[in-house]
């Protein structure tokens, strides 16, 4: 039986195996199934739609068509490995796994295989250190930036003093949720607030005990690092105990329509960070409608347009496309290799003009990637949910993270990684 199955698979593999080396291949390790599907679908749809738009409107990038290879991970690390191995042979230019767990697994693999990986606002924070992580990028902002931006925002709300305040971090008990702890601990020392940590085990449909703890400790603010079904449950629970919603702030992955809508009016005033545009008022939506939606080429069910996570997918695809253009410019030919793609990403300079030209003015922060800094500028905005109008409103300008706290942490963590893996940091002049 074992042998028969093996032969069958081998036969199936031969059917599927021949990689097409033409075009610019962009793998999309998406998750449209499983406990995180509600969040994975809009991102995957947007990622596909943006490249369809480029193919339809501009004939690809620099005359080369883009071929999107989608692979379903289900947010599962084992399937993530399978997806990576099955797509890397197709000439994949850039990986964006949208999962911190899969990112950790792929960091050594992409480094060995020489394929760049972009983890915007997720993944391993110290990958911002381009000297150690040559192939990994996490611009425009990372979790430690997020933690710092939240604290900075709270400072501005409290006349620049958080002394004696109590702040609780409610987090997904995994690599993703644990990332901000170290930064927040340092910040609590610096600003004199008291930090309490409240983990939620994935998937987090049941959070009564955590919110009981919140009621007991009465924190002034709750910071939230959740993902998937955990988000709406937390917001519902907060509404149930009448926690003041404007004192409840989520990271950029805990602020989408999926998360606030189930709590109805109770979610009004909930805040979250974002580093990508809000709403569908951008010129690019005109083009998307004309070339993609109305042409019947939209990915998925097509019901996600204009949502927060859809916009984040567009943003991720835009950064990818711009990096590819840069790579073509640097290498002088259109059919770039993964190594040239990496050079393009390292030379990426996202300006206001560039975003405006792409039909996405002020969609994200302006930033420049360098050899040493793969983390971008570390800026984000705070947005607030208006339950009556059912929309997010951006309520601050771009807030810059406190690099005097974060940079030493990044340097220390990157140095530890370099030592563990015998990497000599690159010389970046």
């Amino acid at each position, binding site marked *: 039986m074992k042998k028969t199955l093996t032969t069958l698979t081998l036969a*199936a593999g031969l059917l599927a195996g021949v990689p097409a080396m033409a075009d610019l291949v962009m793998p999309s390790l998406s998750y449209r199934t499983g406990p995180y599907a509600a969040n994975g679908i809009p991102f995957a749809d947007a990622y596909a739609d943006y490249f369809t738009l480029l193919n339809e409107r501009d004939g690809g990038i620099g005359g080369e068509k883009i071929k999107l290879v989608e*692979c379903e991970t289900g947010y599962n690390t084992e399937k993530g490995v399978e997806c990576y*191995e099955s797509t890397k042979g197709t000439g994949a230019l850039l990986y964006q796994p949208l999962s911190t767990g899969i990112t950790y697994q792929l960091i050594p693999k992409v480094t060995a295989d020489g394929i760049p990986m972009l983890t915007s606002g997720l993944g391993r924070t110290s990958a911002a250190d381009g000297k150690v992580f040559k192939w990994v990028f996490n611009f425009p902002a990372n979790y430690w930036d997020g933690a710092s931006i939240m604290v900075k925002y709270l400072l501005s709300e409290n006349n620049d003093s958080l002394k004696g305040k109590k702040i609780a971090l409610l987090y997904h008990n995994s*690599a993703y949720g644990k*990332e901000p702890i170290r930064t927040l601990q340092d910040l609590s020392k610096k600003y004199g607030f008291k930090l309490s940590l409240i983990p939620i*085990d994935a998937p987090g449909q049941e959070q009564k005990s955590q919110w009981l703890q919140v009621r007991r400790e009465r924190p002034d603010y709750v910071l939230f690092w959740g993902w998937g079904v955990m988000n709406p449950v937390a917001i519902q629970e907060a509404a149930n105990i009448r926690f003041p919603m404007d004192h409840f702030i989520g990271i950029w992955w805990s602020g989408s329509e999926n998360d606030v809508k189930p709590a109805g009016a109770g979610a009004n005033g909930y805040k979250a960070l974002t580093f990508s545009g809000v709403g569908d008022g951008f010129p690019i939506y005109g083009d998307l409608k004309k070339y993609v939606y109305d042409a019947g080429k939209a990915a998925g069910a097509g019901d996600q347009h204009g949502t927060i996570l859809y916009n984040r997918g567009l943003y991720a695809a835009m950064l990818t496309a711009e990096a590819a253009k840069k790579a073509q410019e640097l290498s002088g030919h259109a059919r770039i290799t993964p190594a040239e793609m990496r050079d393009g990403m390292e030379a990426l300079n996202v300006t206001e003009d560039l975003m405006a030209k792409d039909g996405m003015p002020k969609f994200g922060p302006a930033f420049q990637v360098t050899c040493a800094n793969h983390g971008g500028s570390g800026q984000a905005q705070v947005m607030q949910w208006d339950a009556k109008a059912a929309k997010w409103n951006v309520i601050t300008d771009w807030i810059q993270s406190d690099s005097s706290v974060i940079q030493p942490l990044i340097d220390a963590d990157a140095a530890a990684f370099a030592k563990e*893996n015998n990497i000599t940091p690159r010389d970046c002049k």
Partner: protein
Amino acid sequence: MFYREAGDFKTSYRDDGQTFPIRFDRYRYYAVLVFGFVVLPFLLNDYWTNAVFVPFLIYAIAAIGLNILVGYCGQLSLGTGGFMAVGAYACYKLTTAFPDVNIVFHILGAGIVTALVGMLFGLPSLRIKGFYLAVATLAAQFFLVWLFNRVPWFYNYSASGQISMPERTVLGIPVTGASVAPWAGYLVCLVFAVALAWMARNLTRGSVGRRWMAIRDMDIAAEIIGVNPLKAKLTAFAVSSFYVGIAGALFFSVYLGAVEVGEAFGIQKSFAVLFMIIIGGLGSIFGSFAGAAFMVVLPVMIKLVLVDTLGWPTDLGAHIQLMVVGALIIVFLIAEPHGMAQLWRLTKEKLRLWPFPH
């Protein structure tokens, strides 16, 4: 015609008791071994190693381990994921504490640590049975995952709580980390799988295995004929956990390279391994391999056919895969409760008579 005992004369008790009494079977077994050790390493690429063969071999080891406990000794356990986590974290702690010692010894050490932990959690089995024991081992599953998440010492105080495997070599060839050649990781797993399967086969047909089976079939009768339930049950827990621990260590070090305990070793892993032995066949070493192959290969095969070849949407493929695997589990439970091992047994019976059945 070829598949029969006739003409294959056994002249000693040793010959009479061998695992493969039929000559054809014996040669087939050697052929599979030669193919696995000599031919496959040359054919494998990254994809086939990491997506199919390495997980298959690792799950097979875990399934053999669980089969010893459930299939041979009759002690239902839902703690497999937790025990695999013990193996993985033990391997990680050992290899970061003693980086100069060969990784093979660390993996064996991880197995021994897991065996001790398994015996500890096996103690309640002396008092409670059946479903109640399953609940007790379920507690082990949740406790162990909680422990590895809660105590930073286990993950060396890393910021994210993840454990990542540094590069380790065997005879100068890297077998863990990023730059592993496909054949190297595969061969390490294969050596462990073959050695452990060989050991399990010989344990289960010796006096130890007979004691386990006596306990499984009727514990009071076993006690009356002189089987010590304490020893029999605890050895079953120890040996089973040793296997599961090695599987966990390999799963972390060779296969994934970076692991997050809740995600990789959660309750769904316990169920996955339990399904493998139920589908493969309880109380059968071959069944453990067949079940592992079924659960690892089938999803990959469905994906290759539906998504990569026919170009269906990825989510549709994933949903169909869930439905097919689920349906097949039910079909197996109804149509062949003894699993694939029983199908194999029936095939062999038929083959013996072929082409002249009565």
